[in-house]
């Protein structure tokens, strides 16, 4: 960092100065090159998610702290190497053989007033399943020792080909010209044959992964038609004994949220 960065004679209350609209919402950012932010070693952004909007998974080069100003919904932080602890329930043995049972890492519910902590390099996604738009303020601590790159906050998106929220400042900082592929996702830089081999999938799926499909201009926040179906335990209402009892029953058997999921009940095995 430059010398005398923190020799500040005057401070200003700043508004975001960059705005990127997506199909399902909006990302606003404050310029991280501003001396105040540079001195503090942080970057700030504000995300708005409309109903049924999914913030596509991404990871960052520094830890994040997110405050939920408004709304509620679901989020997941993927801890690489940790087990997938949320599983779809088993159905009858015959159906089980044919059916794919999904499993994934923990999914959390967030609500207004929550702070969400996201470690460096862990993948984050967020989803708004309510009518009220979700507004989340995110601080990225680029001065953290966990960030071994420079002070520019970087978002590594797993999908899409949208403009990165901090990319503009990255260009300003480095005096760099816009490159043809800027704004693509982490898969788009790999050659197709590498991905076909690594994922063992066909070219069509690889193209989607790389954001090559024609309709791929939905941005970092996409609308999910019909909503997401996620394996989560039912939400607990405080103070309701009956509902707590029901929750306890259900919590032993996390069920898939949606009508289709309510049908099957797990078969209990007595075997060891």
């Amino acid at each position, binding site marked *: 960092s430059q010398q005398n960065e923190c020799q500040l004679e005057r401070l200003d209350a700043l508004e975001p100065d960059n705005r990127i609209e997506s199909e399902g919402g909006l990302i606003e950012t404050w310029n991280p090159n501003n001396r105040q932010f540079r001195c503090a070693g942080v970057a700030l952004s504000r995300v708005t998610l409309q109903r049924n909007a*999914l913030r*596509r*998974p991404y*990871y*960052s*080069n520094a830890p994040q702290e997110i405050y939920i100003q408004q709304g509620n919904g679901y989020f*997941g932080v*993927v*801890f*690489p*190497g*940790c087990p*997938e602890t949320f599983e779809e329930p088993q159905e009858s043995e015959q159906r089980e053989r044919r059916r794919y049972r*999904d499993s*994934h*890492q923990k*999914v959390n519910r967030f609500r207004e007033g929550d702070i969400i902590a996201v470690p*460096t*390099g*862990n*993948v984050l*996604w967020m*989803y708004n399943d309510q009518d009220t738009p979700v507004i989340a303020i995110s601080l990225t601590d680029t001065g953290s020792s*966990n*960030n*071994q*790159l420079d002070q520019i906050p*970087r*978002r*590594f998106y*797993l*999908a899409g080909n949208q403009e*990165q929220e901090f*990319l503009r400042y990255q260009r300003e900082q480095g005096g760099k010209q816009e*490159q043809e*592929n*800027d704004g693509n996702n*982490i*898969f*788009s*830089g*790999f*050659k197709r044959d*590498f*991905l076909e*081999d*690594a*994922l*063992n*999938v066909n070219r*069509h*799926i690889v193209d*989607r*992964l790389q954001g090559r499909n024609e309709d791929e201009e*939905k941005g970092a926040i*996409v609308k*999910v038609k019909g909503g*997401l*179906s996620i*394996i989560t335990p039912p939400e607990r209402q405080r103070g309701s004994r009956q509902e707590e009892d029901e929750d306890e029953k259900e919590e032993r058997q996390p069920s898939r949220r949606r009508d289709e999921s309510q049908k099957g009940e797990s078969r209990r095995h007595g075997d060891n």
Partner: protein
Amino acid sequence: GLEETVCTAKLRVNIGSSPSPDIYNPQAGRINTVTSLDLPVLRWLKLSAEHGSLRKNALIVPHYNRNANSVIYALKGRARLQVVNCNGNTVFDGELEAGRALTVPQNYAVAAKSLSERFTYVAFKTNDRDGIARLAGTSSVINDLPLDVVAATFNLQRNEARQLKSNNPFKLLVPPRESEKRASA
């Protein structure tokens, strides 16, 4: 006292010829790591290392270092490496041959395919407890996401998302395809 503990600290561990690799697939290769858990003095240095050996046409799936920069030095043979930055740009797509070094910054995605009978490398990492995140295969970040999130994220049908989550049964090292094995034989 403390100084005696420091003075006699263990400073050496062999990863080059270890009989017990951390990751092993007889058809693909082996990888061994040394972190501060194996050699406590590395906690002080905040460094760790990895030694890998890949069979011909075997692949290391796309992955990234979560909390470290990495410098890969090729010891034997050659491999094709691809490195991608946060903008999705390919910042390296070329061969790494014995005697050359390649820096892979934190969070940049990297994948490798061995081009010789045996590609061997050592990677120095700037964190004593470095961790990687895989972008493909079992236990990858894609696997850890709910099926519907994968489908919506990549604009896929659910059955395609299922394939993406489950088609590759390998974790980090992928053996060569049958056709490649025959060709090299």
